[in-house]
């Protein structure tokens, strides 16, 4: 199973690329991956209070209360941005 992942600042700098493809080999229940599994692969935390994530899947923003239960499917495009404000 492959996911296309776009990473915002500064996460992409650790990975080395803004857009990357991540493979989840082997058998997966129902051919899905959880957001938590993806976050773990990328070394990110979904529960970081100081810099929560803005998560977009196939163009749709995922509300925070739906993140934990979200299942990702083969060829989904996931965009991850640190939700920051300030200035």
């Amino acid at each position: 199973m492959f996911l296309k992942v776009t990473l915002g600042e500064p996460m992409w700098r650790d990975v080395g690329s803004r857009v990357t493809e991540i493979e989840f080999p082997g058998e997966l229940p129902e051919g899905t991956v959880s957001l938590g599994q993806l976050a773990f692969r990328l070394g990110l935390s979904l529960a970081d209070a100081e810099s929560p994530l803005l998560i977009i899947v196939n163009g749709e923003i995922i509300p925070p209360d739906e993140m934990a239960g979200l299942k990702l499917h083969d060829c989904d495009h996931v965009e991850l941005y640190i939700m920051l404000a300030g200035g």
Partner: protein
Amino acid sequence: MDTIVGRTAFVDLSTGIVNVEDTPQRLVRNLLGGRGANMAYLYRMLPEGADPLGPENVLIFGTGLLTGYPVPNSGRMSISAKSPESGILGDSNMGGFFPAAMKKSGFDRLVITGRADGPVYLFLSKGSVEIRDADCYWGLNVPDTQRALERDLGKGVRSAVIGPAGENRVRFATVMNARKNAAGRCGMGAVMGSKNLKAVTAAGDVPLEIADRPALAALRKELTQYLHASKIIKIYGKLGTALLYEPANKLGALRTKNSQLNQWSPKLNASELDQHIEGMTACSECTVHCRHVNKYGGEGPDFVSFALLGANVGIDNLAEIIKLNNLCNDLGIDTSSAGTLIPWAMELYQRGIIGDELTEGPLEWGNIDRVRGLLVDISQRRGFGDVLADSSQAISLGKLPPEASNYLISVKNLPQSDPHDPRYIKSFALGLAVSSRGADHLRNRPTLDILRLSEELREKVYGVSTVEDPTVYETKEKVVEFSETIYAVCDCLGICRFVCHGWNSPKLLGYKHFSEMMRLAVGLMLSPEQLSEIGGRVIDLERLINQREGITKADDTLPRRYFEDPMPSGHTKGHKIDREQFEKALKRYYHLKDWNDEGNLTPKRKTEIQDITKASGASLKR
């Protein structure tokens, strides 16, 4: 034990008389310093109906209580006067190294009145103020002025200067120190120019007395380690605030083309910025280092300049945006106002409300040369630049038709600074409406409200239960009130917003930290609760100043566009401000402040605040 204080200088530029006295203890105890103390002098000394560009306006340079002390991010000060841009309270905050130098020249505050016969600058050294001739500096841009002053006075001096925009009384002219540190908002540079005051230069030659030096050093180390452990501080230190563009754009909450749109080019992101940057720099005592040094001879851009000189004028060329940012800084022009007024003019042209005869040619979105030329013309008050140089006042002065007001993104005549479109984030909208200096995000924006933090965390941040959803109105008055209070205290202390609890992060420095810093630095013991009271006191005092300038409940409102035009695209599509819900939130805010339904203080509170301002010892007769 008395609080360690510096001196307050009263400088009358008309007579050349300078009086210096110790900063009053009671003033410090009740309003600390910086913004709060400035407001006391402004309230006591500003004649009703004063012309902001006349000699009777009172210009106050006020360092924070902790400015210059060895505590994190203590490099800021406030510059206050009646604003020539808004016509009400003007107050602007500046970082860099000048604030600390002013404090270390012996001065908490300069209260400047009158008008010099010709160009002058003030030289601060060893607790004294000299008024000196500035003929040879008049006409120079910001960096050239500072270089010339260093050449003439020595490399160690720090100067707060105006550029050509201030000299020509452009209503949104800035006071600048170094390349980018700006007291940007409210036109304080124009007030300086109207007084023929080109610069204030500080030698920084008086060592600061510290109440408990060893304990303060230990506290500083502890707090610096705490701040450096913050993910947010690390991110800003590497990438600055330009990285805020991307999440705002992705969310669909970015002011674009005068807020006709809410999303713009994805090209303008922090990673594209890398190739234009040489490194990061900082202000005095800063732990963050959020400021870019760019490859075009300047510093910046920050998020505001990046977005408003980019998306809001329809430009997506990063190098050109940076150069426009540099140009504004060199001319001494506020990028917030420029990045709102030029788009305003572009929309007026787009709609046929103004034409070539007035604008001297087409005024199209994304025309970099045109924007560049306009900035120079604004600074010189030349051609159509002279119209824009009057900012929102161009309408009342008859330079623009009355219909133009329907498209200006401003509150209380101050163009909006926040690049976020607040139609989606209701607390931001409420904050803009009630901010004491007009449409400005630094006064009270409850930034964390956009993050949808958990209820438990929100309660830790704000101290009360609030609704997590940024698109609803309920409880948003609580987050605005919390934010305005702690930010006011920050400004009174001279501490940067970036390390303030609630601004960028649910962690960072709060009242208990400020209390400890004050005790060890200057020997003033105030509890966190007392500090919070002072913050509320400052907000109430500012309300009194504004009401005396004619502000009423009717002015606590938002641009017409926010009520009538839904956001057009993206995740935020369809959102706008519901008038009825807004009015209810406004009323709840008033009641939270113990103001009545018209936004007025109670008579008892008014008397209390007026009595405190007397601690300044100042009056109209001075």
